[in-house]
């Protein structure tokens, strides 16, 4: 496929649609009472797994662009990456609002006391840092520190996979697959991450 500058806005529009559709679908499910009698856990899980899936897709962009020589794909990475943050924000917000019902003290306690929530919270802070530094201006200002900071995304994907693995009540096959894929995507960058020059 040949995509040039002219096509890029259309490509991006399609990406937006794909990223927004599941959120709209969730809203419809909840408002049509189709997400169960008490959809709290459903919403939390749905947005959480949405964040992880989107993150895996983000990490797939640069290997795919290289492999299939589709450099235009790189232009979509920020967009997709910001959706990771959007899904993660919905995930955290629904946990805090629907499950904890806005109890700050309980939130603080749970983050400190529960390793799996702490791991998730650290990952969320990383995603937050990456999102606020994703603007071109900030990128230019940060120089080579920008890449250093954004390499933390690899740490985040591992943390999030662990967070998922740790959170399930039983049956660890699915979260194990996520950990494996996460490690695989980080492994693809092993050379880049270990060579000094690339930083």
């Amino acid at each position, binding site marked *: 496929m040949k995509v040039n500058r002219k096509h890029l806005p259309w490509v991006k529009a399609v990406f937006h649609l794909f990223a927004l559709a599941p959120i709209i679908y969730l809203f419809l499910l909840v408002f049509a009472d189709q997400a169960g009698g008490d959809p709290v856990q459903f919403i939390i899980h749905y947005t959480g797994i949405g964040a992880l899936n989107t993150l895996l897709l983000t990490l797939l962009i640069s290997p795919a662009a290289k492999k299939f020589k589709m450099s235009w794909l790189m232009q979509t990475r920020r967009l997709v990456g910001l959706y990771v943050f959007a899904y993660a924000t919905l995930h955290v917000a629904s946990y805090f609002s629907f499950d904890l019902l806005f109890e700050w003290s309980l939130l603080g306690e749970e983050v400190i006391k529960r390793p799996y929530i702490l791991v998730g919270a650290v990952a969320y802070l990383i995603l937050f840092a990456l999102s606020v530094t994703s603007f071109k201006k900030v990128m230019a200002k940060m120089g080579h520190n920008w890449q250093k900071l954004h390499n933390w995304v690899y740490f985040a994907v591992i943390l999030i996979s662990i967070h998922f693995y740790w959170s399930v009540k*039983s049956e660890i096959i699915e979260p194990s697959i996520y950990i494996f894929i996460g490690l695989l995507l980080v492994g693809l960058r092993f050379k880049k991450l270990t060579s000094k020059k690339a930083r």
Partner: protein
Amino acid sequence: KPLDFSENQAFKISEQLTPETKVTSHNNFYEFGTSKSNPIENAQGLKVEPWTLTIDGEVDHPITLNYDDLYKIVALEERTYRLRCVEAWSMVIPWVGFSLADLIKKAAPNSKARYVAFETLYDPEQMPGQRNRFVGGGINYPYVEGLTLAEAMNDLSFLAVGLYGKTLPPQNGAPIRLVVPWKYGFKSIKSVVKIRLTDKKPPTSWNLLASHEYGFYANVNPNVDHPRWSQASERRIGAGGLFSAKRIPTLPFNGYGEQVANLYKGLDLRKNF
């Protein structure tokens, strides 16, 4: 189907009931899938007629009940109980059924009986979770649960055959299920086919799966957290939308301490969680 029963005023509470639609659409019944909405979607075909429930083991008079017997072996009564899930949500539910002790007395436990073991129907053809571990959450089926004989003979221990005045829907454990309101919900085993009196502590499903997270007793206890979440408070599922739920403090023994605390005298409830 509507049921004939009397209201037992001794077990009525003033707390607001959880609406029937929520009680029947928010269920943990891993035999039909692990998400809360799976049971209502997948359990509707469950065949409860004919049904056989046996009470045997260390008893003088083993009993075999068929479907019709379930509704007349003991006169039915309605009791409203709080249900506290180990996942820190709770409901208030009007059950119809009878005291477990009444049934066990009919079987006449012998002197060796110390525990009561329960077993859910095992029928992979009807229960997708038993066919496929992805669907069934990795539990070794059939689902098993157990109580000490003293717990089983406590007045609160209840066998429910109905809910909101009608026979139990499949997703709530039709045709007959246990309700032990001072313990976390997973103790209240559904769709029971076997009750066996034993001299040894019976295995229990969640304890087998993760013994550090789910104990044999599983008494509701705000002071003993689940390793991955706090048990100090709970989300009460009432009427209304998402934000209408309330977070309320969890009570020891789910508020039934007066009736059951004496069962655990001298027992360290932190160790025996």
